[in-house]
């Protein structure tokens, strides 16, 4: 049973005639890493950003089809049905997101990680401290920052900031994490650390990751979806996609003939 | 909570709209008696606070020999701002008399107000200010954007912006006591005049104009400049042939914006223009501008006189609204 099941999904940006995503069918499997790859403009980020409806920050988007979300209690709901503010909040607490550039909030390291918990209603100080520590340990950042939790998060390096953002997302115990090219702004060493971390995280959460880096997709993902011009061209186990793709387009892209 | 916050911010934003409309309506309403009385002739009539007798038979207004008196009165008002209470009463009485006489339809005199002098004064001081400030401001902008090394440009830039931060009343005082005497020695004429007021106004808008012109120039992409230098162009040629054409629209917008500022400036001009309702014959003659007419006469005015001042305010508001709109929405928008 996939945790997210995208069915006949189309998406149109406001003021545009043609849909940016056309009739997408894609499962995001539980405790697996699904990579979305494809040339820029193929709609992979658009698809990822539909999964937590972050698009809805800007009005006028058109959705068609279904994105079924199966939560830990096996309750199935269609993400696209959500209309109320509180339902959005609930959804986003269950489906977290990590962005291309690190997005540390302008506050201390501790407050950054605690922020999601606080707005989710956790008030107890010791519980906050415990969960922050767990999240930071889980993101392999604890050792580096445990002695300066009250310092501004802006002082961290880019790679540390990104791990902090992952800790922040993990702290609220989401069921799904969406990564939108999380390493594209980082150096190779930080990238390696983040990749290890993502693989580590799939024990607890299901992961979808957009990447422009095919090696990254092949290194860390279990499943890969190749997208092109708003269509889902091919979806399969990662080794199949990279070793014997069924579609010509996929092969061309994988072998670097375009993109 | 979300809703409340959103509503609050929306109403604050709408306040701007309400204020601007409110200013316009208020000025219009307050100016209405004067608009009804004088119509558009107000703009071309040079007489302010003048008694004219109404000749019922010929309908032509015969000027009562009041000009001298009212002028003297004006000047006394200036000097005795604090103890103008009696004058106040006198003017009040006068106005009331007029009204009563008007009502009885056998009026012999009435007071007329025309806005030509302050309108001309405003335009001329602004023109002089611009003529003076423009070349210097352009020079400063070029210096800051292109010539000075970064650290010097920073320091000079801050100094110029500090000059812009000095309250306008300081410019007025300094202008009156230190700048004007030099100017009147050089050019003759009065120390309080169109010329001195315009020049001090020029000094005042100078930093503002320089700062926004520099910002416009800074929008020129470096690659463009570099490719011109790579062809062997001199700095002057790069500035003339690349930077000016590229940022032309923005620079014009900046100049017009400075013009809008100058039009509405009160205090720097108030010290220096002389504040008399007389058309200047020479550039070194004293006269008055709209903001100064308001600043110096509002307290004592009532009735039709006050309404005429609001009429002037309305004219000033509309002119500056138009000029600023043109600068911001035509030139500066286009520049970006």
């Amino acid at each position, binding site marked *: 049973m996939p945790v997210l099941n995208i069915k006949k999904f189309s998406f149109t940006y406001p003021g545009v005639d043609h849909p940016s995503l056309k009739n997408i069918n894609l499962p995001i499997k539980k405790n697996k890493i699904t990579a979305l790859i494809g040339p820029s403009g193929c709609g992979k980020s658009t698809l990822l950003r539909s999964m937590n409806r972050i698009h809805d920050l800007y009005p006028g988007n058109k959705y068609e089809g279904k994105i079924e979300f199966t939560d830990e209690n096996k309750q199935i709901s269609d993400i696209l049905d959500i209309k109320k503010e509180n339902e959005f909040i609930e959804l986003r607490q269950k489906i977290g997101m990590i962005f291309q550039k690190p997005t540390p909030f302008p506050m201390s390291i501790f407050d950054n990680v605690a922020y999601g918990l606080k*707005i989710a209603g956790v008030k107890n100080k010791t519980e906050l401290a415990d969960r922050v520590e767990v999240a930071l340990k889980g993101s392999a950042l604890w050792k580096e920052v445990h002695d300066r939790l009250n310092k501004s998060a802006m002082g961290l390096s880019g790679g540390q900031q990104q791990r902090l953002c992952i800790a922040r997302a993990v702290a609220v115990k989401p069921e799904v994490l969406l990564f939108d090219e999380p390493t594209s702004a980082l150096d190779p060493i930080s990238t390696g650390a983040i990749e290890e971390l993502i693989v580590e995280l799939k024990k607890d959460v299901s992961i979808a990751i957009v990447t422009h880096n095919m090696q990254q997709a092949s290194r860390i993902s279990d499943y890969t979806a190749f997208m092109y011009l708003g269509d889902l061209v091919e979806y399969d186990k990662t080794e199949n996609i990279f070793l014997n793709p069924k579609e010509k387009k996929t092969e061309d892209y994988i072998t670097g003939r375009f993109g | 909570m979300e809703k409340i916050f959103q509503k609050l911010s929306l109403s604050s934003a709408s306040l*701007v709209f309400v204020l601007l409309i409110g200013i316009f309506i208020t000025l219009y309403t307050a100016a209405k008696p004067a608009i009804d009385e004088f119509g558009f002739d107000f703009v071309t009539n040079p007489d302010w606070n003048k008694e004219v007798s109404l000749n019922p038979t010929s309908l032509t207004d015969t000027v009562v020999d009041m000009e001298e008196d009212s002028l003297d009165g004006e000047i006394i008002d200036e000097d005795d701002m604090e103890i103008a209470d009696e004058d106040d009463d006198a003017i009040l009485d006068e106005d009331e008399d007029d009204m009563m006489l008007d009502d009885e339809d056998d009026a012999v005199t009435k007071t007329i107000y025309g806005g030509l002098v302050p309108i001309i004064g405003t335009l001329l001081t602004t023109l002089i200010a611009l003529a003076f400030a423009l070349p210097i401001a352009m020079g400063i902008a070029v210096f800051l954007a292109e010539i000075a090394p970064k650290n010097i440009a920073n320091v000079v830039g801050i100094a110029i912006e500090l000059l812009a931060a000095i309250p306008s009343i300081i410019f007025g005082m300094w202008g009156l006591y230190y700048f004007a005497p030099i100017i009147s020695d050089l050019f003759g004429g009065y120390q309080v005049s169109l010329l001195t007021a315009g020049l001090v106004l020029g000094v005042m808008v100078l930093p503002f104009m320089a700062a926004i012109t520099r910002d416009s120039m800074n929008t020129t992409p470096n690659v463009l400049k570099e490719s011109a230098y790579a062809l062997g162009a*001199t700095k002057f040629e790069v500035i003339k042939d690349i930077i000016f054409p590229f940022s032309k629209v923005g620079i014009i917008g900046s100049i017009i914006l400075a013009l809008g500022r100058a039009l509405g400036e009160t205090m720097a001009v108030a010290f220096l223009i002389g504040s008399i309702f007389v058309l200047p014959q020479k550039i070194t003659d004293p006269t008055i501008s709209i903001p100064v007419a308001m600043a110096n006469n509002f307290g004592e005015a009532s009735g039709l006189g006050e309404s005429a001042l609001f009429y002037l305010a309305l004219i000033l508001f509309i002119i500056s609204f138009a000029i600023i709109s043109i600068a911001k929405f035509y030139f500066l928008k286009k520049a970006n």
Partner: protein
Amino acid sequence: MRLLINKIFLSLSVLSALIGLAFLAWILITLFIKGLGSFHFGLFLNDLIDGGLRNLIIGQFILAGLASIIGIPLGMAAGIYIQEYGQGRYANIIRDLSDIMMSAPSIVIGAFVYAVVVVPTGGTSGFAGAIALAIMMIPVVINTTDNMLSLVPRELREAGIALGASKYKVIIDIVIKAAKVGIMTGILLAFARIIGETAPLLFTSETSNYFSLNLTESFPSLTVSIYDLANEPEEASRDLAWAASFILTVLVLIINLSGRFITRNKK
């Protein structure tokens, strides 16, 4: 020949900068000499009626402070609306109108407040003066807030939303915090501007020779009194005006510079 023209042109430009600096120096030196010449600490102890400036300085601060209390929240809320909530037309219109209002002649705003506050309440008052200054301040605060919020990266808002925070929470906890330094600088510059304003106060607060905290009557204003004093024939009054101008300018420049200093330090 080309090089000669180039040289002449560049020298003219440097000359312009020198002229600009010369004016600044001239004004500051004048203020310093004249102002310091008439300056003594007694000015801070006595009110205008006893030849001091105490009531005027306090009055000016109260007027500008009250204007800030009115103007800053309104301006920030409006700026937040334009940048965060406003979609399309309306927000753009408000932004444009606020831009225009920023350059509206201050004397006209004085006349407006005179008509809508002074006349209905029966006389000049501290409140009327503060309202006039607040109207001057609001568009500046809107502009700053709008600009500074626009510099906050979109991802930061999305990251907040993606954590399940509601929009106003994201704005208050994250976006405003991220833009704090810039907004504070803008507000300080706006404060420096209104505290030196004269024209909007002339017929709203007027001024008073006495110490007063009563905002419902004519209120002591440093700038308005400078204008009155400078036009009086007695040498002593004018000296007092110079001393007052000196204090005013020092205040304005300190506030202005500290605003710039905050930004610089943070960078």
